């Protein structure tokens, strides 16, 4: 019995909790991608670098706050700085839309041209972020690190395995839950939210019924930039901030959005968790887990080495596209 409990705790510590946190971060990112896709109808390649930009602003403000001696008690100071990061990302997104994407939207250019423009935007964000903060790893998490440490958990339960509940994980889950609930309420209840959904369903009909497209687009960018910044800051608190890693997050985020059904917010959330858990579960070494069940495996019992986590996003993506191109929640086919 203890062995079984130990195995469960081990699993929770190394697979479940990291999976939940990563899933929530991906879900927030995928929500942004899926909204931009639903309303503006293109896959935004600059999303990863937008995340990096918002996070960068947050980090800079965090450093400034820290130097002023302002903290947030046990919580990381970055949460105080987050609103300013969000504002920065919103300003950047709206500026980009005004200067670049609007031109193609008004002209009704083909999707692929807008996607290419987003690649150009990605280059620019990329350069800006690296010029300001540099390409290296930045850690900016402060405050308490653990809600429950391994030792406390062991003393509490008397088990051999410990469950460390890290504060960034808890913050991620709480913040993501609040943000997603707020977003859904906004989309379902508010006038603007309804207008956005109508616009996403059928642009022409929405225009006919008097919805102001400029307003819808602006609100979409505001939401996407906010979500991107929140996702980026949470990911950075949980792991660390590095511009290139944020660019690479693009792939799992796209995978999450497509798995859930593109243009479907609920699908983006589900997709985020599916991708995150597939990654964590397939790259975890199960050796100790099996030892508690009396097996003595030779190897690490790892299905895939960690470096192949991109392959997992990719395989999920391809399977969905082949088996059910609309995604789980019947999104749009690109």
């Amino acid at each position, binding site marked *: 019995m203890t062995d079984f409990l130990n195995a469960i705790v081990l699993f929770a510590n190394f697979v479940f909790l990291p999976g939940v946190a990563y899933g929530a971060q991906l879900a927030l990112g995928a929500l942004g991608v899926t909204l931009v896709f639903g309303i503006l109808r*293109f*896959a935004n*390649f600059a999303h990863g670098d937008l995340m990096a930009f918002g996070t960068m602003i947050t980090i800079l403000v965090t450093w400034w706050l820290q130097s002023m001696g302002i903290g947030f008690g046990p919580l990381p100071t970055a949460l105080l700085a987050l609103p300013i990061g969000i504002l920065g990302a919103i300003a950047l997104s709206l500026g980009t839309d005004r200067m*670049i994407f609007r*031109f193609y939207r008004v*002209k009704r*250019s*083909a*999707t*692929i*041209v807008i*996607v*290419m*423009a987003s*690649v*150009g*935007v*990605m*280059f*620019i*964000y*990329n*350069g*800006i972020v*690296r*010029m*300001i903060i*540099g*390409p290296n790893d930045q850690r900016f998490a402060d405050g308490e690190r653990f809600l429950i440490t391994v030792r406390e958990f062991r003393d509490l339960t008397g088990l051999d395995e410990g469950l460390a509940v890290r504060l960034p994980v808890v913050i991620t889950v709480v913040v993501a839950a609040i943000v997603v609930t707020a977003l859904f309420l906004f989309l379902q209840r508010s006038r603007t939210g309804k207008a956005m959904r109508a616009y996403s369903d059928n642009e022409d009909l929405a225009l006919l019924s008097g919805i102001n497209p400029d307003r819808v687009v602006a609100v979409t960018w505001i939401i996407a930039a906010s979500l991107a910044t929140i996702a980026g800051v949470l990911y950075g608190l949980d792991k660390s901030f590095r511009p*290139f890693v944020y*660019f*690479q997050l*693009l*792939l799992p985020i*796209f*995978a999450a959005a*497509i798995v859930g059904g593109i243009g479907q917010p609920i699908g983006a959330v589900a997709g985020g968790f599916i991708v995150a858990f597939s990654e964590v579960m397939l790259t975890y070494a199960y050796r100790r887990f099996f030892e508690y069940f009396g097996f003595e495996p030779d*190897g690490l019992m790892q299905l895939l*080495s960690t*470096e*192949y986590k*991109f*392959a997992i*996003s*990719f395989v999920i*993506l*391809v399977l969905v*596209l*082949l088996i059910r191109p609309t995604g789980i929640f019947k999104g749009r*086919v*690109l």
Partner: protein
Amino acid sequence: MSQRMRIVVLYGIMAALLLVVGVFQSWNLAITIINLCLISAIMALGVNIQWGYAGIFNVGIMGFAALGGLAAVVVSMPPVMGAWEVGGAGIGMAFLMLVGTVAAVYFVRRHTTGNTRFWATIATSIVGYFVIRYFYDPAVDAIESFDAARTGYLGGLGLPIIFSWIVGGVFAAAAAWLIGKIALGLRADYLAIATLGISEIIIAILKNEEWLTRGVKNVSGLPRPVAYESGLQQADWFLNLSAWLGANPVIFSTLYVRLSYAILFAIVLIIIMWLAERALNSPWGRMMRAIRDNRDAAEAMGKDVKGRHLQVFILGSAVVGVAGAMLTTLDGQLTPGQYNPLRFTFLIWVMVIVGGSGNNWGAVLGGFLIWFLWVEAEPVGAWLMNQLTMPLGPGSGLRAHLLDAAPYMRPLLMGVILLLVLRFAPKGLIPESGGSPPTAAKKAAVET
């Protein structure tokens, strides 16, 4: 200005830019830039074959270039016999099992239907996976621990490296066939995301499969297709030649080596360019453009759109693979860590768009021009930053930071160029010639 005049003038300007570098910076630098310009031009041709001829948006260029690099190692390095003895059989068995699994999955899929088919496929794949791992894991361990500091991999075939340029094309073509089979049916955005993923996977493989590539330990000291400086400096004929030219033999030997590379690369570029132009102006090329401009109409005329797309995807990727092998040959080492999508995928795209999609002359010009700007953006950016921040004084922290940041002017500059061209000159510097004006917008308008 006629199209021909335009080409002559723009190529002339490009040549003048390179001359300026030669005269004011150094000839060594100029020829180094030219070498990479030639390789970039070939990559840009490959992308142009996919995008310009057929409107396929492939964002996985980096992966195909890296496969070319792998070919350079596999062809040219001497085999590590000890590693083959301890692990060759295991790798061979694992490969056989992989083939067996694929065959079994194929067999199962042919003889089942519906839900059974789905589960049977998954079950067969999982069983196959564990069988492969059973042979693969011990073999890999054995190979990687064989003299790990110096080898730890299987080595290659020990053939002249120049063959790897062809093999690189073949590797890339094989990968493209596999990817194309899976992903080419998708619409443009999905294909872009899928190819982006594939390229990341290929890089992950190169980084992690140490038995094949030594991973991040890198394979260095690849044999060269041209002479070595040290050999030249001792050869009588070379000393005589440099004395006759009045050049320092040490400096002249580097120049000589780089020049030999440039000549080899130029020959490859000319061959590929000739083939690409022939293809573009043949009935096949007209059919490709017809498919690109109006897919449905072409299909109604009985053209096999999917088959043609697969064909052109394979051809374009093979050209990129050739260029990738050439690049690794020039570097003399395979460094899987150096592949990064900004440099190896998106930069090539900027070349094609700026040069003029659909026009091979444009793609080649774009390859030269953009590589030139990419290289020169750094010193110019650093100089500019230095001048601009002069008033801050030498002790300023901000100034030091800004000077450090100068290299990242590059992606910024590329982004600005791409956006400016897309917006104000979507046809590029040398527009596609021929009947319908194929702006990128019009090209893709048909797809949506």
